[in-house]
């Protein structure tokens, strides 16, 4: 590979809500040449094909408007995804960030040097600070180890939304949605918009995760998909219910929703340490990864949160990046890993911040594997309890819940990992 070598001040990979917000903020703050790379032909990220509303409403500590707004209608709060995307793109451009679409960061040629491919050729771009904002994807059928034949008609929400909203493609006639997360409802809405009959929403959870449910959507709880059937086209989905019964739902389309995994390939190829829980880069409250000068924001860090949250992270990264550019950055390495015990799945950020830095909104985001009614969360380090708190609401799988960061300044910098348990 040969390629032109260039230098910029800040290089941002990914022009979704997180990357665009980071670019806008940094360009406006006079960070020098701020360049955002986007591999798609159009910038904007996932919201480009989320034709429901619910984007960019009031975003503050209630960083969760998205999930609770996903009832029978998506259009209650904020604007639609595409207009949100357009707005974010315009804001980044107006602030002076250079946006380059159709350009993919394919790998690393040095600690802060990325290799890129685009129609104009190959490049090696070195930056004083790199921000990874590569987003997340839903696990497809293979990754979920769903057995059966491999007929057409099997989608993730991402593919479904693009097919319907960006390409106007024909889907099928009868669909099953697998999953019970906010995105599952987005899938149901897209199917509805495409005129596809929704046979059922299927979840292996016994209690539906969402409080606000669409009463018109038939929901089957406690059911696991055991097989996909059909040859030239999907013909059915076999289920096993918790009580041992088995059924087959006749359908020609199935949408596998949720079960997000960060798009961490570029991060990993750069040798960045990952958090085993989130599968995104391990990071601290200043969005620093294990690689000096490389920051990470958005769904890459913790899989799916709402767009406003990702954008907020993008804005938040500006301060530590500016410190880096000014040479006033806290030295890395002082942070302690934060680990969780089952049934907790992960926590983000998962490294304690440099002195004085609290995570966004002054709280950590967590996920659980199973439902915990009013969990008691205990934070400890080397056997010393730092904090204990009973949450007021239930923690449910597939939805984030939060732990205030009050204890962060009690962490011993010379101690080992901080541990979070829940009961």
């Amino acid at each position, binding site marked *: *590979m040969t390629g032109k070598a260039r230098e910029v001040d800040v290089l941002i990979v990914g022009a979704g809500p997180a990357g665009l917000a980071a670019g806008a903020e940094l360009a406006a703050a006079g960070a020098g040449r701020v360049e955002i790379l986007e591999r798609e032909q159009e910038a904007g990220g996932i919201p480009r094909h989320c034709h429901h509303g619910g984007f960019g409403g009031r975003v503050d500590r209630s960083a969760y408007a998205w999930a609770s707004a996903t009832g029978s209608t998506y259009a209650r709060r904020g604007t639609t995804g595409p207009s949100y995307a357009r707005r974010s793109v315009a804001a980044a451009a107006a602030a002076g960030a250079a946006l380059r679409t159709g350009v993919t960061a394919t790998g690393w040629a040095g600690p802060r040097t990325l290799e890129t*491919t685009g129609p104009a*050729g*190959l490049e090696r771009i070195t930056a004083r600070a790199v921000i990874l904002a590569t987003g997340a994807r839903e696990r*497809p059928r293979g990754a979920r180890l769903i*057995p059966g*034949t491999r007929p057409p008609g099997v989608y993730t929400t991402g593919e479904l939304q693009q097919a319907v909203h960006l*390409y106007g493609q024909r889907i099928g006639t009868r669909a099953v949605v697998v999953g019970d997360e906010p995105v599952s409802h987005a899938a149901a809405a897209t199917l509805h918009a495409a005129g596809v009959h929704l046979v059922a929403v299927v979840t292996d959870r016994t209690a539906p995760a969402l409080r606000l449910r669409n009463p018109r959507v038939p929901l089957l709880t406690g059911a696991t998909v055991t097989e996909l059937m059909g040859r030239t086209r999907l013909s059915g989905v076999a289920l096993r219910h918790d009580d041992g019964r088995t059924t087959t739902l006749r359908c020609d389309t199935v949408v596998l929703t949720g079960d997000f995994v960060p798009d961490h390939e570029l991060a990993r190829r750069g040798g960045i340490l990952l958090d085993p829980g989130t599968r995104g880069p391990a990071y601290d409250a200043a969005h620093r990864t294990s690689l000096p000068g490389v920051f990470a924001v958005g769904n890459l860090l913790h899989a799916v949160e709402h767009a406003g949250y990702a954008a907020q992270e993008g804005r938040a990264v500006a301060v530590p990046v500016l410190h880096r550019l000014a040479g006033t950055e806290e030295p890395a390495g002082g942070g302690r890993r934060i680990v969780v015990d089952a049934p907790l799945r992960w926590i983000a950020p998962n490294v304690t911040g440099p002195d004085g830095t609290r995570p966004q909104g002054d709280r950590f985001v967590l996920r659980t594997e199973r439902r915990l009614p009013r969990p008691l969360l205990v934070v400890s380090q080397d056997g010393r309890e730092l904090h204990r708190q009973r949450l007021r609401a239930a923690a449910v799988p597939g939805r984030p819940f939060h732990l205030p960061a009050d204890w962060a300044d009690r962490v011993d910098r010379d101690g080992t990992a901080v541990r979070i348990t829940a009961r």
Partner: protein
Amino acid sequence: MTVTLTTAGPLHPDGGAEGTYDVTVVGAGVVGAAVARELARHRLRTALIDAADDIGDGTSKANTAILHTGFDAVPGSLEARLVREGRDLLAAYATETGIPVERVGALLVAWDEDQLAALPGLRDKAARNGYHASRIIDAEELRAREPHLGPGALGALDVPDESIICPWTTPLAFATQAVRGGVHLHLNCRVLDITTDADTHTLTTSRGPLRTRFLVNAAGLHADEVDRLLGHDVFTVTPRRGQLVVFDKLARPLVSHILLPVPGPAGKGVLVAPTVFGNVLLGPTAEELDDKTATGSTADGIRFLREKGRRIVPALLDEEVTAVYAGLRAATGQEDYRIQEYPGLRYVAVGGIRSTGLTASMAIGRHVMELLTAVGLDPGEPHDLPPLTMPGLGEAFTRPYRDAALIAGDPAYGTLVCHCEQVSLGEIRDALASTIPPHSPDGLRRRTRARGGRCQGFYCGAAVRALFEEERP
């Protein structure tokens, strides 16, 4: 160069006595395509027909993609010979045409004393198969060469020439060269019945009658049925399913060689191997079935493979899975190929090409050519086929998205459509306009890798389908 490729309507071979082909090959898998390519070197009217809408759509699309040395074949068998010859032929052909192939070598890992004790016997068997480069290595060397191997490995037989190859480009290369050489390819053309008189076979196909003087049966899993249409009852094909799990490219550094088990009474067993696409493969299972269409995976199969895989390379199990698939081997109850010529019938049956057909394909092609001569075909002098260059799908070679000169000449090669596999618009456009274009998005995937990566379409599925549909008449 006139290319004849039909996918619908009645079959009209141009020229010839009342539209009769000299030779017809039934089955456009890797074997049938290799036979057709061999026939293309002669001035013959040849047809290659398949029931599916694409070439290589049967067993040939779903295997472990290893270019075997044949070190463990049954010495003296036809299979042993054809695998040995086929390996050399295909390795050379791959280099010439750009079919991705990597000589990564295999290690037969011994996990207990019995297996360790079996290694010298396997080395001697390899020698009897004409393969002399294998040697036994101890636990320490094994660990140095495969540091991610699970605990407890005692030693291994090193087979440095076992290679990995692209299973999709291989039949496509054969078929492309065949049709460019004048062979007629008829798809969606299932043979339903055969009537035979003194000098012609009349095949009743799903697209009408087809007449041919000579006939080659390379129908894979259905070779026994086609054989019965000619009045024989010599062999029965029972499908033996092999399920496989494909791990993400990020797992590739965990495995350097093809890690084979020491074969036991239960067959060849489960292997872990790199793929030319830069993934890691775990499998296959071996399940005797009676349904020739049972190409689905099962929960039991996946569980079984994961258990085996955990033993071989524990860290593999933490990696994301890209895909799960299954293929059916054409077992016939005999430990050898069932290739048989019938002089009176001007017919060659190519059955029972079980688990080595990809490797042996070119040698089978040559062998069948000889048998056709033996049953009365006068092929005339062979001529060279025009050279062929296949699109480079191999991760170990410079892919178009990394090729500055190529992109400078045509920016479409720098425009990525499938991000996980880094497939460019240029490659997709080329495949859609190629000699044998795909007839489904899956066919396009086998020609370009588009939509075959870790996201399986989350990002690019709709875009790839749109490109495919634009091209469809």
